């Protein structure tokens, strides 16, 4: 049986990718940020998964306004890093896991999540920057990755509660896959940032950290955060945080999807690492690693 061993949460700022690709990680501007991910890179080496289920959003790269899926799962054998206008990032191509991805798609569609199945898609910084932050600059990513894209660009985006419940359904799907796989689920994007208008550059350190506390310790409550709170408190692009709730909802301390009321849940996850830094370009960078226990 496959199982989810841990969840990883991190912002996915494009400028971080550029800093890595251009060898600027030791510059004074970037050094504090990358220092915060040193323990994470070590953790990845010590806890190498068989598959990463990576929740992110596309930023007008693979999906234009021609077609906007609320939830899209990548079931292809591989995905190329996208050219976002400056040429593709010099990072390894992403190897998928078609069997597990299709299995998850099948399971969650039967649980009434109306996924779009994608077999051809380039992946942008939303997916590749978290991989770079956690894995550095290897010749190949350490394991297959299932891309899972969420619409957070055109409103209405899915609610925090919908995302949280989807995470629960994904866990159920993973646990019904009959190969013995160690799966990590990553939620990316956020934290506070606003990229537009006279309010561009908004950062709300207090709100971010309070939300992070809640996401870790009382995820049901974090899932109840209305959209308007993200926008008002954490900037228009802070809405990306709903994607973290997919990963959080898949952890063992949350009741499994479809489990009877009052069924026993697993223990609280262990917080292996937590980090927060301002700024990375226009954005506050939040990061946490949660390990399922026992």
């Amino acid at each position, binding site marked *: 049986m496959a199982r989810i061993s841990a969840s990883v949460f991190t912002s996915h700022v494009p400028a971080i990718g550029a800093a890595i690709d251009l060898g600027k990680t030791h510059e004074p501007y970037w050094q504090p940020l990358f220092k915060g991910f040193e323990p994470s890179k070590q953790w990845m080496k010590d806890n190498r998964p068989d598959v990463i289920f990576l929740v992110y959003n596309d930023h*007008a790269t693979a999906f234009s*306004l021609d077609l906007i899926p609320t939830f899209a799962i990548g079931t292809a054998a591989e995905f190329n890093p996208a050219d976002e206008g*400056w040429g593709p990032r010099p990072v390894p191509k992403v190897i998928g896991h078609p069997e597990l991805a299709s299995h998850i798609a099948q399971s969650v569609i039967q649980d009434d999540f109306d996924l779009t199945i994608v077999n051809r898609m380039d992946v942008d910084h939303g997916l590749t920057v978290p991989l770079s932050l956690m894995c550095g600059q290897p010749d190949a990513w350490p394991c297959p990755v299932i891309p899972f894209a969420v619409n957070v*660009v055109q*409103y209405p985006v899915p609610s925090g509660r919908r995302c949280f419940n989807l995470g629960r359904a994904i866990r159920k799907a993973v646990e019904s896959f009959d190969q013995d796989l160690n799966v990590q689920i990553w939620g990316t994007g956020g934290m506070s940032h606003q*990229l537009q208008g*006279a309010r561009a*550059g908004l950062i709300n350190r207090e709100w971010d950290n309070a939300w992070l506390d809640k996401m870790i310790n009382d995820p049901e409550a974090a899932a109840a955060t209305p959209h308007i709170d993200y*926008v008002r408190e954490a900037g228009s692009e802070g809405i990306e945080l709903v994607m973290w709730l997919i990963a959080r909802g898949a952890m063992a301390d949350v009741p499994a999807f479809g489990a009877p009321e009052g069924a026993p849940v697993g223990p609280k996850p262990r917080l292996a690492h937590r980090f927060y830094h301002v700024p990375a370009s226009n954005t506050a960078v939040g990061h946490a690693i949660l390990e399922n226990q026992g």
Partner: protein
Amino acid sequence: MALDKPYQDIPGTIIFDAEQSRRGYWLNQFCMSLMKAENRERFKANERAYLDEWAMTEEQKQAVLARDLNWCMRTGGNIYFLAKIGATDGKSFQYMAATMTGMTQEEYMQMMLSGGRSAEGNRYIGEDGDAQAHRQPQGQSHQKKDA
């Protein structure tokens, strides 16, 4: 439409909803076309001619020619799409963000290094934060241009 739009009371912020998306469809699809190198070259060679190939409104074309991103957004542009104009111009995202505030890129970068823009006074229209309409433009960029 009878659906709630609770996000219209936030200063300096346009939420890209279905209505904005409809308004900005061709503007954003024009931006998307700049993902291809040959289109970037054609646009740079003759911006007006390239824009005229798209079913955009005259106002949208003027907003693009002026590189006025706030104006572009009012006509339905979305920042992730509009960013492709900046990429074509060889500008960083921070430069683009700065232009939307009236700050120079240096001023904007300093604001970010000091912890970013505060939410205080910027949560609701009618407060007195630096993102409120009556406090625009925020920086020196405008003066410089006029000088």
